[in-house]
Structures are given as structure tokens and as C-alpha cells.
């Protein structure tokens, strides 16, 4: 039995800041897929990611999305716990949100403990995000997505600032939490390890869109040459 795709784009032209970045974009995204976008910087990964997010948000009912934007959008004045708990801000009334903001109840802290530990920030929950390193900030943004959960994750270079040895583990944490993922990555080996499908971008269009198991590292490396 095949389920209908979550999203389908056909022959679309995608623009960024009024200028066309990608043309003739056709793709579909099915539930359970882990789609990885590859390409040189400026090839349109973020633009395509944005279009996929907007397409998903426009549906009725809209699937629950978790986001890890390239600018992680953390609030440096607040603690790691607060930034992580923000992932569920829409599940609660403004009044309850205010209560957690001023004096987090133990239950709220307990909810965030799991994701915070999973990204390796044990013991950092009460630290101000402004005092963290770049890698730790990115982990905070990942924990926020993990706590939020949902039907799909959309992440733009989610492990670009962490130690390469740990990036694989963090991507696995995301894979265990989200059935469907759309990721922009810059590391071809990680892309092959995590993705079920790879889209290669270049020259203002989609160069290839193939299952990960059919692709070799050499074919991917060609994206970054010439």
C-alpha cells in the first residue's frame, strides 16, 4: 500500500530576495523519507528548504513541523532550558508560558531534561545561552527540535558547528525522533549515512534526485567540482 506523498512540487521556480535561484523544481516528499539536499554554498539549498517548509505549512491540516534554521534563532539572554522548552510554546496557553518563563515548574524542567541530555548538554540547563560556544548553541537548537517532535523535521546545516566526530551521533538522535526529515548538509559521507534520498543542486536547478543507496561518494563529489 502506498500512502499519498506529504508534498509535491512541480516545475516551480524558486526565488530568493526577488531573484530566481532555482528553476524547474519538481520533487515529492513521502512520509518516512529522509531527504538530504547537497550542493555548493549559494546553490539554493536554503531556498529549496524554505519552499518545502512553506508547502507543508500551507496544507490542511498542516503537519507538525520542527525547525532548525541556519540562524538557530536562540534568545541569548535566556537559559538553555528556556530555549529548549520554546519548542513547545504553541502547545500551551500564553499564561502557562508566562509561568514557565518566570519560574519553571519541576515537570517542565523534567520534560526538557531528556533532549538536553541527548545532545550532550547535561548540566547546562540553567546556563545562559549567550555564554555558550557556537557548537553548544547549535546543540541547544537541536534539543529544541527534539523536544518539539512532530511529523517532520526541517533542518538547515544542523550540525555545521559541532565536532565532526559527534555530528553523526546527533544526526542519529534526530533520525530516531523524526519519521520524516529534510536536511541541508555539506558533508557527503554524513548525507549517505543518514539520508534515504539525496538531491544534488547546482547551476540553478536540481542535478540529480536519487535514492542514497544508488549513489557513490564520487558522484556526489562531482557536485563540488568545476
Amino acid at each position, binding site marked *: 500500500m502506498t500512502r499519498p506523498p506529504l508534498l509535491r512540487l512541480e516545475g516551480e521556480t524558486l526565488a530568493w530576495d526577488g531573484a530566481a535561484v532555482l528553476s524547474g523544481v519538481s520533487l515529492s516528499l513521502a512520509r518516512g523519507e529522509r531527504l538530504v539536499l547537497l550542493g555548493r554554498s549559494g546553490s539554493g539549498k536554503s531556498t529549496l528548504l524554505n519552499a518545502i517548509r512553506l508547502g507543508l505549512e500551507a496544507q490542511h491540516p498542516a503537519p507538525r513541523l520542527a525547525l532548525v*534554521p541556519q540562524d538557530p*534563532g536562540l534568545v541569548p539572554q535566556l537559559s538553555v532550558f528556556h530555549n529548549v522548552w*520554546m*519548542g513547545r*510554546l*504553541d502547545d500551551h496557553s*500564553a499564561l502557562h*508560558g508566562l509561568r514557565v518563563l518566570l519560574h519553571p515548574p519541576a515537570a517542565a524542567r523534567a520534560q526538557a531534561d531528556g533532549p538536553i541530555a541527548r545532545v550532550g548538554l547535561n548540566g547546562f540547563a540553567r546556563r545562559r545561552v549567550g555564554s555558550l560556544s557556537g557548537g553548544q548553541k547549535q546543540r541547544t537548537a537541536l534539543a529544541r527540535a527534539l523536544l518539539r517532535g512532530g511529523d517532520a523535521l526541517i533542518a538547515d546545516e544542523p550540525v555545521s558547528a559541532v565536532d565532526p566526530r559527534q555530528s553523526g551521533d546527533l544526526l542519529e538522535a534526530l533520525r530516531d525522533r523524526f519519521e520524516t526529515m529534510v536536511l541541508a548538509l555539506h558533508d557527503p559521507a554524513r548525507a549517505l549515512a543518514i539520508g534515504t534520498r539525496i538531491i544534488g543542486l547546482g547551476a540553478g536547478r536540481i542535478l540529480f534526485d536519487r535514492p542514497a543507496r544508488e549513489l557513490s561518494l564520487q558522484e556526489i563529489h562531482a557536485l563540488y567540482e568545476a
Partner: protein
Amino acid sequence: MPAPRRWGAWRVLAGFGLATVGALALADLDLTRPDPWLTLRGIGAGLLSPDFGDPAGLAYAAALTVAFAVCGVFAGALAGFVLSFGYGLRAIRGLCICVRSVHELFWALLLLGVTGLGPLTGVLAITLPYAGIFAKVFAEYLAEADPAASRALPRRTPPLSRLLWSRLPLALPELGAYTLYRLECGLRSSAVLGFVGLPTLGYLLETDFRQAHYGAAAASLAVYLALILPIRHWMRLHLAPFWLTASVWVLARHPAPPMGDGALLRFLGDAVPAPIRAGDWAGLLPWLGRMLGEQALPGTIATLVLSQVALALAALVAVTGFPLIVGRVTGRAGALAGHAALVLARSIPDYMLAFLILQVTGPSMIPAILALGLHNGAIIAHLMGRQGDALVARLRPDAPHGLRLAAWELLPRLSGNFFALCLYRWEIIVRDSAILGLLGIATLGFYVDAAVQELRTDRAVLLLVVSALLTLGIDTLSGRIRARMRLSAPGMRKAEPEAAEAA
């Protein structure tokens, strides 16, 4: 539709220059005091030997000065903070514009009739206009907070949560810094409230001066400067609870005058134009015509004349004053001396400065022109000098020193800021020109004061409305000129004293 042509700097300068020549022709510049040297000698002797004969009185006036400022500014910040969330609503924005377009001293004059010569009048006179200012600035800071955090929030987050969790914490440090800056302004306002009778340091200064006790007056001035010059060291946000508690304690013990029942209602009744109160609706138009023709119009003209000459002087002071504090122009010792001069000129409120000069020169527009020009010019010079100092670090290694650096490298680069700052201070100079009427110059404040003295609240309110409209008109005109000159208006607040000094 083609965009209107950009106005060049020369064109704007020429326009303001012509206006200044016209204003100079109309201005009353007589030196009436027969022998200013006698007074000057007395003041000089007083300054050299200040008389601290009444330490308890000085200390209490200083405590009240701080208490009015702290309570007034924090209450204004709180009210402004709440109002800032609704600043997008036309009604709230209009209310804020109204309360902040009336000067603290005018508020105090009006409130004297409602709350009397007590602590509440002093606090409210600062709180009301400051609430309007805080609401505007806080709303802008909140709107300018980094939108990335808000974008990263889930889409259906309640709007209030969105504000409290992302924009507010991001803007909070700036809100705190701005509040600290306003405390300094509040201290100036509080001292000046003494001139309408509230027992702050300004009150001591005025009474001693009028009785030619120059030594005692110099002592009050010294205490005031000892408070305001190091304010950054003793007024810090984490000490706010302490200062607030102490201030409330001081004010709670200060006697409040008995105002009788229904003072507010009586005041509101009196604010209704006299012909309407008498049921004589037909008399309203002649009343309005008489008020506008005999008081509002001459007051407005005098206000504009005074402010125009003062603006020209402020621009002159700014251009000649800013190089003083740039080390590469005047050297290390010179820059220090320059800083001292500018700090002094901007720490003494223009109202107090005008009062001091008035004692020497006698009544004419001269004291007001000098005070407004020096005070506002020093503020602009201070900001330009700081920007100039920052520029020096990025200049080519073989850039000249001294005056040539100021004239060839700094002034051309800072000319945009110069125009923006002058145009921004223009509105403030006009507002303060109206206020200086309380000292006897025939600007709008003079007529307001007379109406209040005669207990004609309706006239005072009408004149205050005219004064507020005048300020708003200048603000609009200044905004138009800035837009035509393509001076970046939105970022201007960052170039104002608050941000530059609080940073």
C-alpha cells in the same frame, strides 16, 4: 511617479541661515542690566567660596531631587512598558504623543492646582511625559529585536508568548540601558522642578540667587553637580530596588498639602473655556479669537524667533566643539579639558543655565539663546566627538593631525550626523524655548505662567495645546527635511544621547 529630488546640505543650510537672519532682526537682544560686572563679581566670589552653612537643608533637597527623579522615572518606565505593547493602536499612540508633548515644568504648573505643592506633583510631572517617551522608545526596541528567534518559534505560538519569550528578552538589555539614561534626564528635570516651587536643589539655587546669597547658591550647584556628574557610578540597575525603596521612603515622609475634596473635579471644571462654563456659547469664538490673537500668536512667534537663533548657536557650538574631545585633534590633555567643558554644559539643564545667565545680563532673549545654544550644542558636539573618535581609528595611517584632521577628514564624514542631530534637537529646542517663558521672556511659557497665576486654567490648557501642536509641527517638519536630505531617520534614535551614552 519620480522620487522627489534629494536636498543638498547647502540648500538646507541656506534656508536655516535665512531664517536665522530674520529671527535675529526680530529678537530682543538688549543688554538691559546697567552694570553686569557687579553681579558677575558677586557670583564669582560666591563660586570661589561656596557657603555650605546649612548642610541638613542641602542634604534634604538633594534627597528630594533624587527621590522625585527615581520615583518619576521608574513609574514612567513601568507605565511606558505596559503602553508599549499597545503602541500599534492609534488611540494609545495618540495618548502617548499628547502626554510627552507637554514639558515636565508645564505638567508641574498644571498639577499644582490638583495635587498641590507636594510629592505627588513632582513625581507625576516626570512620570506623565516620560511614560509617553518610554512607550515610544520601548515599542521601537521591541520591534527592532532580532526576528530570527521569533521565526524559529512554532507557527501557532500565542502572540503574547511570542513577545514574552523572544522579543522581550532580546530587547531587555536595551530597555535597561535606556531607563538608566532616562534617570539622568530625570535628575535634571527634578532639579528644574525646583523653579516652580518644589523643594529640590533648583529651589534652593533659585531662592539663594534671587537674594544674592551667591555662596549658598554655589553650594547647591556644587551638590547638584556632585550628584549628576558621577551618576553612572551610583545609579546602576542592580541598585534600583535600593534607590526606589529609599526614594519612596523619603517622599512618603514629606508633607503633602491638604487639597480639599474634589480638587481634580474642580480643576477639570476650570479647564472648560470660560464662555462655555457661563453657558454663553456665542462668546466662545470671540474668546478663542482673543486668546489666539493676543497670547498664542505672539507667544508662538517669540518661541520660534528664540528657538531659531538658539538652533543656529547650537549648530555653531557643535561644529566648533566636537573636535575638542577628539584626541588626535587637541591632544590628550586638550581632549580631557574638552570633555570637562562639554560635560558641564550638558549636565546643567538649559533652564537652570538660562536662569544663571539672566541674573547677569538682565531680561532679554540673550540668556535663553545662550543657554539653549550652549546646552544643546554641547550635546551634539559630545555625540559627534565620540563618533569622530571612533572614525580616527579607521583612518589611513598618514592622515593629518589637529585642525586639519577635524576640517578635512572628520567634519565631511560626520556632516550627515551633524544635520540629523541638529534637526532632531530642533524640536527639543522649540519645546524648551516655550518653557523658558517662565523666566519672563515672552514665549508661550510666559502666557501659560500668567494664566496659571491668575487661576485661569482654561487659558493655560488652551496655550499648552498650542505649544504641543507647535512642537508636533516642528517634529513633522524636521522629519520631512531629514527624509528629503535622505538622512537615515529610523536609526537616528541610536545616535541620540541615550544609546550612545548608555552603551
